[in-house]
């Protein structure tokens, strides 16, 4: 217990009581200050603010109950023990209602006094502990959060670097291979090698370019370059671009467009990027090992939705996702594609849709397939 807590204000008009009780309390290690009446007690209390007050219920002038109420009003944490006479039961009970911690009856018994004091001290201790916890809790939460954020940021940086290293290593493999094949073509004057090597180099240079663009797209905060265009234009382009890829992996690519959609304001290049990401993922999902028993199918749709300029729907019957995977898809650098994935695609798709103030939704069932929906708002 702190030194301050060892202070007791003892209030009684009987000098004998003040003396005897004073000695008894001093023996128990308390620092006792005494007052003969309520007014004096209150004046002393304002200066010392002792945690425990022991007061007679019957006092000349200001009654003990009044003193109790004044103390509790100014300093609710102070515990007040009432000293009562035999016939003061009514008053004693009333004092409890006003917040006294206990009452002891005259003639005073030391054991009863000690129990009352113990009760008062315990009450103070618990209240202080709770307050400490509450105050420290805020500090604790602040510190832990700060630490967590730092750790997470570091982890995110490490993850980013590792994902980049992986993607670059992959492309480097393609570039080295391309250079090798091209060199053989030059060395042996072999047209086939020259063509193949050159194509490989071009393909992998394109991959580096795309990776750099993706990263730029992700890190840069920029407004979409709004243009008034046919909402079917980007989805048509993506369909044309991905058809050979789908065919190579024997996935049926279908397109079903609402040709009556009015022109809308959006960034065609970036929406193209979103749809391309989704269609690529859809085809990849159909070529998953788990799906080789059925014909892979990816359908692209554009349709009219109330309050929106357009709704795009990319639906596949591929491997689908479990809840755990679905929860992570828009996260940084999360990929299920092993060496081929950078984990950037959906992250960027999400960002682009956000920048358009649009909506992106995903429903998926493991083993059944996945549907992505993008809705773009009407802009004037």
């Amino acid at each position, binding site marked *: 217990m702190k030194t301050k807590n060892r202070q007791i204000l003892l209030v009684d008009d009987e000098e004998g009581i003040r003396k005897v009780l004073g000695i008894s309390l001093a023996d128990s290690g308390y620092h006792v200050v005494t007052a003969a009446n309520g007014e004096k007690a209150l004046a002393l209390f304002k200066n010392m603010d002792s945690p425990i007050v022991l007061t007679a219920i019957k006092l000349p002038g200001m009654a003990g109950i009044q003193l109790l109420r004044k103390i509790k009003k100014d300093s609710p944490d102070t515990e007040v023990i009432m000293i009562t006479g035999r016939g003061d039961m009514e008053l004693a009970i009333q004092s409890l209602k006003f917040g006294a911690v206990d009452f002891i009856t005259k003639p005073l018994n030391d054991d009863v006094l000690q129990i009352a004091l113990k009760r008062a001290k315990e009450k103070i201790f618990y209240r202080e502990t709770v307050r400490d916890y509450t105050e420290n809790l805020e500090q604790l939460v602040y510190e832990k959060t700060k630490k967590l954020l730092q750790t997470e940021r570091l982890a995110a940086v490490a993850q980013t670097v590792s994902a980049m290293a992986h993607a670059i290593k992959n492309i480097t*493999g393609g570039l*080295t291979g391309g250079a090798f*094949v091209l060199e053989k073509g030059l060395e*042996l004057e072999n047209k086939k090698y020259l063509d*193949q090597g050159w194509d490989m180099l071009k393909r992998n240079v394109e991959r580096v370019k795309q990776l750099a663009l993706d990263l730029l797209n992700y890190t840069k905060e920029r407004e979409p370059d709004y243009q008034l265009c046919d909402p079917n234009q980007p989805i048509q382009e993506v369909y044309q671009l991905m058809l050979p890829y789908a065919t190579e992996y024997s996935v049926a690519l279908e397109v079903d467009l609402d040709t009556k959609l009015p022109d809308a304001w959006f960034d065609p290049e970036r929406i193209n990027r979103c749809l391309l990401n989704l269609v690529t993922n859809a085809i990849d999902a159909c070529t998953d*090992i788990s799906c080789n028993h059925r014909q892979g199918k990816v359908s692209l749709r554009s349709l009219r939705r109330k309050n929106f300029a357009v709704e795009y729907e990319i639906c596949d019957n591929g491997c689908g996702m479990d809840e755990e995977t679905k929860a992570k898809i828009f996260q940084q650098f999360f990929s299920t594609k*092993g060496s*081929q994935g950078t984990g950037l695609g959906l992250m960027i798709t999400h960002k682009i849709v956000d920048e358009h103030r649009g909506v992106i939704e995903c429903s998926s069932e493991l083993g059944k397939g996945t549907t992505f929906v993008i809705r773009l708002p009407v802009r004037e």
Partner: protein
Amino acid sequence: MAKKILVVDDELDMRIFISTLLETNGYKPFSAVNGKEGLALARKGRPSLVIMDVMMPRESGITMYRGLKTDPDLRDIPVIMVSALSKKTFFHSQKVLDDYKGEKIPEPAAYIEKPPEAEELLNAVRICLK
């Protein structure tokens, strides 16, 4: 006569690179894009060596490898694994599968992590075909 080597990889770049490397060193490569096609071509083409990837769509290299090693006609063909999967991970997966299936599949003749170096791969090929 030039020795036939089957190259199985879903990545076009990898197929071209390995095929060119083999062709310019006097071998006769032919290729497949997934494990299923790879196993069928191995039965049909009877290569002296198989160079294959582990992670491929449709049917993974792990399944194809076990297919090769459990087929009495094909089990003696040496296999070189070329994969982005670390060597440790691959061998661990093999051990787990062995335990699960209660069979012991021999280890591949060589395991090369992607991207493969021309000389490293060629050396492995030479050793296998000695």
